[in-house]
């Protein structure tokens, strides 16, 4: 509620943010759309004209498209499962009264603050190196043959690295959600004779449902565009080429801008499908 006066002031004060974001969205998006309909090879002849939907067709039919989609889905799905399941368990554990809770929380959160290039590099060399990595030492200690992590088990390795980064995020949000649960509900259930497992299944889990959905949606959006972790570890080799990485290669490495842009449009559509679900939840929350 306000006056004409404050409303016009408000419009004025909102203008810079709106104009900037509008520009940031529209200009590159229009350009991507434009390029996606052209045969455009900056290093091999430049702009070779309008080709209709050819780039879209070629991107879909290229032999690397479906493997890239598959890789993307496996990595995103894998990280989601690991981080959500472990996140729930960890959040339940951290919710219990323990000694040194503050310190433990810090230890658990820390990986989220490590920049992606560092975590990729540290895991790749100091943990997954088949000769000198910690994991190799561990395997040898138990008499097993060290694993060539990033070439023989490339996708699980990437899932492991990315999960390590995102588990703290899931844990933190789920922990916040658990702590907002009214303890009287649990006490009432306990008085009603519900054992711990039932209390978890019928009270805690439904209470967490919303938080879990949000974790899944937000992580999906970020995970669909993970880049540095692959760039630094395998460079897209050994079956780790995700959709994002494929587009990156088409655009900057092969300099096939038209084809890459068509891929970009697919990526935007994919992200928007996920975003739509997220925004509906967030929007509903705004009304409350």
């Amino acid at each position, binding site marked *: 509620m*306000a006056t004409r006066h404050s409303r016009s*002031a*408000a419009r004025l*004060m909102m203008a810079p*943010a709106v104009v*900037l*974001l509008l520009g940031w*969205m529209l*200009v590159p*998006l229009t350009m991507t759309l434009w390029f996606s309909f052209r045969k455009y090879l900056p290093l091999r002849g430049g702009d070779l004209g309008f080709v209709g939907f050819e780039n879209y067709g070629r991107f879909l039919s290229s032999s690397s498209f479906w493997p890239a989609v598959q890789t993307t889905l496996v990595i995103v799905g894998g990280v989601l499962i690991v981080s959500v399941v472990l996140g729930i368990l960890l959040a339940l554990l951290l919710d*219990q*009264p*323990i*000694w040194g809770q503050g*310190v*433990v*929380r*810090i230890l*658990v*959160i*820390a*990986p*989220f*603050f*490590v920049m*992606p*290039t*560092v*975590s990729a*590099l*540290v*895991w790749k*060399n*100091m*943990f997954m190196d088949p000769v000198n990595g*910690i994991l190799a030492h561990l395997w040898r200690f138990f008499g097993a043959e060290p694993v060539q992590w990033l070439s023989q088990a490339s996708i699980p390795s990437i899932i492991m690295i990315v999960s390590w980064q995102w*588990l703290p995020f899931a844990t*933190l*949000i789920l922990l*916040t*959600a*658990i702590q*907002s649960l009214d303890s009287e509900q649990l006490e009432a259930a306990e008085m009603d004779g519900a054992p711990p497992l039932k209390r978890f299944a019928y009270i805690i889990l439904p209470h967490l449902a*919303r*938080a879990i959905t*949000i974790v899944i949606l*937000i992580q999906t959006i970020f995970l*669909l*565009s993970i*880049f540095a972790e692959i760039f*630094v570890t395998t460079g897209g080799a050994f079956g780790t080429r995700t959709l*994002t990485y494929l587009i*990156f290669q088409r655009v900057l490495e092969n300099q096939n801008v038209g084809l890459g842009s068509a891929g*970009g449009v697919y*990526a935007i559509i994919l*992200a928007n499908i*996920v975003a739509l679900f997220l*925004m509906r939840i*967030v929007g509903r929350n705004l*009304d409350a």
Partner: protein
Amino acid sequence: MARAVTPRRKAVNTALAWAVGLILFFPILWTILTSFKTEAQAIADPPIFLFFDWTLENYAIVQERSDYMRFLWNSIIIAGCSTLLGVAIGVPAAWSMAFVPSKRTKDILLWMLSTKMLPAVGVLYPIYILFIQLGLLDSRVGLTVVIMLINLPIIIWMLYTYFKEIPGEILEAARMDGAGLREELIHVLTPMAIPGIASTVLLNVILAWNEAFWTLNLTAVDAAPLTAFIASYSSPEGLFFAKLSAASTMAIAPILILGWFSQKQLVRGLTFGAVK
């Protein structure tokens, strides 16, 4: 939900939680420890945990060889300036939406959020080519602007949720007391919102510091921040564990410290107020 439990149960929980915490933290701990080892000790078999000859030479070598300070400076400038710029643009916008809401406020907020969902790779080439044409490639200015833009929706959302908690009557009281818009913002809103603004700055410095897609793709030498500096160690000649560790430690230490202060804000900032 803090409830009374038996000491035995608490001890078991404590042991379990600490074990998990230490496992998750171990890669960071190991990196920090290794950074103080000699290269030989860093790859010793079996690995040496604590009893090695502590040395600082790796840090000296890293600084000398790759001019760490320059990357650090770029990171500080880019993360700091993009955040401050974002807050300067975000405070008025968030004020508008929190205190002068209209029918479109919700749509605008959600639209701003949707720009954050735009996959970077979808607009990589346009930004790349625009940067070349505007002479912004490998410049701190260009990167600052791009990172400001990708974080602006988060900044506005966080500020919005903090401002929403300030009762509108207090701002109206200021208006009745003769304060104009400027005085209302400076003397009343800002002092009351300081904790929220500080949290917003903190989280966004962290996000900007760790941003790795645009920093890797839009910089080469001059404007490269620490993300790019570390990526340069992935090439084979950089494979010396101790030096790699020293470089990594230097890249993450400042932000780890900031991050520990901002756990609560992290939840609010990254879930757009949907989880409290």
